[in-house]
């Protein structure tokens, strides 16, 4: 047993199993709250990539020193090889590297060759998958050089574990991560083409969906970069710009999280919708730095790893300190023969694609095996074989004590001046079954934080705490990407729709309970008007109880509660780098409550008790959410769009309510008036002003024309007009203030309406009807004007004569790889 583990074990033993278990639960809760509740379009509840183990993975001071030194060498080497392959190709000309390693690589786009190198480096962030065999030797299983993933999860694990084990951190003197991230940030700053101390750096993401999307948002926030997707960016005059409400903002550095080939549909993969048309030319003209450099994918090919030893001697005159697991590239006759002779004991990989799962010949059928052999014979250079390694184990927590699990470790290095710095830690994947870890990077059962003990005082720099350096103070928010503004606007609308829906349903349940109506008795006609606001036409025959219950718990479809909350979560997710963590947690939690209620309440019965409690709960959460938004978001353009969405939706919903209930007056109107005030959260204001006397005129005033009641239509219109007046307006465009004019005229009409006149019956309230019709007509026009000006989705570029086809990998293209 290793020295350092003994120290950790004694610390953990000092805590006792109950405390460890409690800390595990707290750390996990934190991850769940940060919440990757969503991994796709469906309601997949996957709280985290993998559950987090409370026991840390331990690297001793000496072990880490060895690995850090060896990985820095490897990063330097891969960087030099990338420069050579994309430049003079000496290693090929001088016969160290067979030409096929480069020229048969289907991912080698000739556009990469000869591009200028900003900052002199190809690889700014490097990751290696490391493991230790039974014999105690360290091995690299694979290199990641184009857009290594996992750094965000490493960080998240560290923060979650750091919170619960803060005592152990100081006791055991564990190295911090912040210095590494600071170095990484400094490195990207130095790449900037304009030499500014504060260049505009964006993180180019695939998008919000999936675990990579989550990680991208997490990293962007931590590093302080703008999170962008391809459609947020454009190339103008060979410069990359971020399309924002305030205009096009120049971008100097892109930290890209998408593959090389996806970066530019003009010069690279024409099918890519993730990249930016013209990006390669912008780089070629030296107006842009990309980390990592385009083409850095070439050096993560498994085929290359068979040659790293000779290449290290060729370029550096020294031996490779940390070897790759024995790898045979089939492009050479002797190696191919070895692989064919020992097929069943090896793993096979596509020679130029290191990220997919291996082909396991031992588990193939006779027919699949003979197909594989045929493909190796036909295009041997497209295959590599790797030795299967038995991985070591590490203690993992089982709730009461430890048990040995197999592990794999991803470590990271960042460019640091002339060298590379290695993160003291990493992402540890654990599995009971050794072979599960071979299917990297997505397979594991658990994850651990990796601890490195420091000698002397551990560095306590934290990027989470305010830096001592003076910063340039900024107050504007016009760098808001148009796509983000659009999502915020719809998030505002969805939140309001959800709240309104919850309040309406709550009022209906109250009515049902007050009447003591049994389920089979239909609601009386007057009240059915409210019920019909539920948009559940497909359920006309269902009982009142059923309709209410289904509106809350049924599978999401437009109009029901689960859909409304789903939309909130989806939209919040797409802008989560703009939301505070608390706001995100609240949204994620609402969906969790709802799903729990779905799980425990059979939808068929008519019991509304739980539903009522759930609605109360949701209203509270939504009110808290609204409060959080208005209190903790700075008054940037982003906040304005969020609030515009809320106000627009609230105005519309309130008008809908008034229209349904007041136009055709009921014989006994007082209970409905009271319910209206409840739904619109204005009952208390009413009582202070008018005591218990329930009359239509003051209700109409309070909900429609009174512009100091935050729930009235007039109030919404007042704020809408104010927001619009603060949006960037282009005086050069003749139509530029159509939205402002519209909002002003709507506001004037509503504000000047006389409640007494509106309340007149003849026998219907025709005056009220006229005004409501006017609002119903104008509000969508205003919405459209706003959308056209600011939010119209940027069109995706079309291709012509581009080759609309994925890259065949020779023999691999037609295979149904097992």
């Amino acid at each position, binding site marked *: 047993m290793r020295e350092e583990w003994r120290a950790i074990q004694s610390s953990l033993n000092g805590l006792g199993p109950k405390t460890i278990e409690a800390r595990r639960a707290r750390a996990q809760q934190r991850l769940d709250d940060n919440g990757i509740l969503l991994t796709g379009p469906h309601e997949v509840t996957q709280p985290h990539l993998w559950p987090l183990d409370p026991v840390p993975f331990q690297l001793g001071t000496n072990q880490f020193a060895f690995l850090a030194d060896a990985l820095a060498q490897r990063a330097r080497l891969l960087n030099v090889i990338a420069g050579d392959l994309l430049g003079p*190709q000496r290693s*090929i*000309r001088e*016969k160290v590297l067979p*030409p*096929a390693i480069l*020229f*048969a690589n*289907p991912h080698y786009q*000739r*556009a990469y*060759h*000869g591009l200028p190198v900003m900052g002199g480096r190809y690889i700014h962030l490097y990751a290696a998958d490391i493991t230790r065999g039974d014999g105690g030797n360290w091995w690299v299983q694979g290199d990641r050089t184009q857009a290594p993933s996992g750094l965000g999860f490493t960080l998240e694990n560290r923060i979650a574990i750091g919170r619960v084990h803060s005592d152990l951190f100081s006791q055991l003197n564990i190295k911090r991560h912040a210095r590494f991230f600071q170095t990484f940030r400094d490195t990207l700053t130095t790449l900037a083409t304009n030499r500014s101390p504060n260049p505009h750096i964006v993180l180019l993401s695939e998008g919000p969906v999936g675990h990579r999307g989550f990680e991208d948002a997490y990293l962007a926030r931590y590093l302080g970069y703008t999170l962008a997707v391809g459609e947020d960016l*454009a*190339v*103008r*005059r*060979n410069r990359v710009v971020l399309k924002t409400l305030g205009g096009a903002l120049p971008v100097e550095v892109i930290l890209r999280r998408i593959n090389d080939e996806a970066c530019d*549909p*003009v*010069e690279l993969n*024409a099918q890519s919708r993730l990249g930016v*048309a*013209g990006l390669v*030319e912008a780089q*070629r*003209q030296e107006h842009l730095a990309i980390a990592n450099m385009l083409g850095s994918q070439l050096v993560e090919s498994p085929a290359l790893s068979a040659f790293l030893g000779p290449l290290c001697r060729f370029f550096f005159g020294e031996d490779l300190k940390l070897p790759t697991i024995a790898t045979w590239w089939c492009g050479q006759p002797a190696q191919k023969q070895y692989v064919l002779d020992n097929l069943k004991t090896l793993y096979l990989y596509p020679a130029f694609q290191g990220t997919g799962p291996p082909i396991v010949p031992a588990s193939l059928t006779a027919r699949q095996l003979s197909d594989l052999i*045929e493909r190796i014979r*036909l*295009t041997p*250079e497209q295959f590599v074989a790797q030795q299967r390694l038995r991985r070591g184990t590490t203690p993992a927590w089982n709730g009461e004590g430890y048990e040995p699990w197999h592990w794999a470790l991803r470590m990271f290095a960042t460019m640091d001046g002339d060298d590379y710095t290695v993160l003291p830690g990493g992402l540890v994947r654990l599995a009971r079954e050794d072979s599960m870890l071979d299917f990297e990077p997505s397979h594991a059962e658990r994850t651990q934080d990796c601890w490195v003990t420091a000698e002397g005082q551990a560095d306590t720099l934290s990027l989470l705490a305010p830096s001592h350096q003076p910063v340039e103070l900024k107050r504007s928010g016009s760098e808001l990407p148009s796509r983000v503004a659009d999502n915020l606007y719809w998030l505002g609308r969805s939140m309001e729709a959800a709240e309104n829906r919850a309040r309406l349903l709550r009022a209906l349940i109250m009515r049902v309970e007050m009447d003591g109506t049994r389920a089979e008795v239909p609601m009386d006609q007057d009240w059915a008007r409210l019920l019909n606001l539920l948009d559940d036409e497909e359920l006309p025959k269902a009982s009142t109880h059923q309709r209410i219950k289904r509106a809350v718990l049924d599978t999401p479809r437009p109009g029901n509660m689960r859909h409304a909350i789903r939309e909130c979560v989806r939209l919040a997710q797409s802008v989560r780098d703009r939301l505070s963590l608390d706001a995100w947690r609240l949204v994620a939690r609402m969906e969790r409550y709802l799903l729990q209620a779905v799980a425990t309440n059979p939808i068929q019965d008519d019991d509304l008790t739980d539903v009522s409690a759930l609605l109360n709960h949701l209203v509270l959460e939504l009110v808290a959410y609204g409060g959080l938004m208005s209190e903790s978001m700075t008054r940037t353009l982003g906040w304005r769009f969020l609030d515009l969405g809320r106000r627009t939706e609230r105005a519309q919903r309130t008008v809908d309510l008034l229209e349904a209930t007041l136009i055709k007056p009921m014989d006994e109107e007082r209970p409905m008036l009271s319910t209206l005030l409840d739904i619109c959260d204005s009952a208390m204001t009413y009582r202070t002003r008018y005591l218990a006397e329930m009359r239509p005129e003051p209700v109409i005033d309070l909900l429609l024309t009174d512009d100091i009641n935050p729930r009235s239509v007039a109030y919404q219109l007042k704020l809408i007009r104010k927001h619009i007046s603060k949006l960037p307006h282009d005086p050069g465009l003749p139509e530029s203030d159509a939205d402002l004019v519209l909002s002003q005229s709507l506001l004037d009409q509503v504000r000047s309406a006389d409640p007494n006149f509106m309340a007149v019956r003849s026998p219907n309230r025709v005056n009220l009807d006229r005004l409501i019709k006017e609002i119903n007509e104008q509000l969508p026009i205003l919405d459209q004007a706003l959308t056209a000006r600011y939010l119209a989705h940027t*069109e995706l*570029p*079309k*291709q*012509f*004569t*581009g*080759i*609309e*086809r994925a*890259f*065949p*990998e*020779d*023999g691999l*293209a*037609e295979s149904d790889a097992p």
Partner: protein
Amino acid sequence: MIVAYKVRHTTKFEYPIPVTVCHNIVCLSPRPDARLNINHASITITPQPTVVAERLDAFGNITHAFSIEASHGELTVNAEANLLVSAPFFATADPPWEQVVASLDQQADPNWFESSTFRFGSMLVSRDQAAREYAERVFTPGRPIHEASLALTERVNKEFAYKPGATHVDTSSKEALSNREGVCQDFAHVMLAALRSLGIPARYVSGYLRTIPPKGQARLIGADQSHAWVSVYMGPELGWVDLDPTNNMHAMTDHIPIAMGRDYADVAPIRGAFLGGGESKLSVSVDVEQIVDA
């Protein structure tokens, strides 16, 4: 023998809805080559591009990258050149094809490095089983490489139907080989797949073919077409030999090479992306005129 030409290639896009921004790369300027003397070459883009940059690509072709950042309803790219094409010279040596391949594999052939990039699969050419079988019927053991390549040229010419519209710009060698029909691009791709499946370096050449009007008729201006053929590496003495499977012949002075790469995708005349535009209408006119008193 040397023949002088004036070549004009006009590509026009018409858009029903204006295009607000486009980014393009054109590969229409003649590539400097031993058999080609370029007296004059120009590319004219209308409307005036916002930015334009000329450079050599990885294969030595001249490309122009340009973008137009003002609204336009039409885009015209006009490439013109005055050229002298000289006839190739063929050495008489004709080594067995396996010997050429082995010498390249052993990195003994003086051109092993430069030819490497043309020995493997590429976007539209795959070294699959079918291509290999197709090649092996002609490339029998010990057969001289020039002879065998001519036999392959003839075979493709005889067995494939020339059928415009049967394929697209992105039809792969695999599809063309199984359908046995296509245009010059597909004939070339099939031949490239066959040759490369054996490890023989082979490249795609894009250019023009002079057409001679039927007797008694005037030459029609603009009725010519872009053409494509292949260039095969046959060892240090023969070097690269250009073969035209569409017409079953050596490419001589009727063939005017413009660009070369691994397949069509490397030398597509215009590639790009644009915003707006709707369904664009494309028209291409090519005019190859021999200049008699050059």
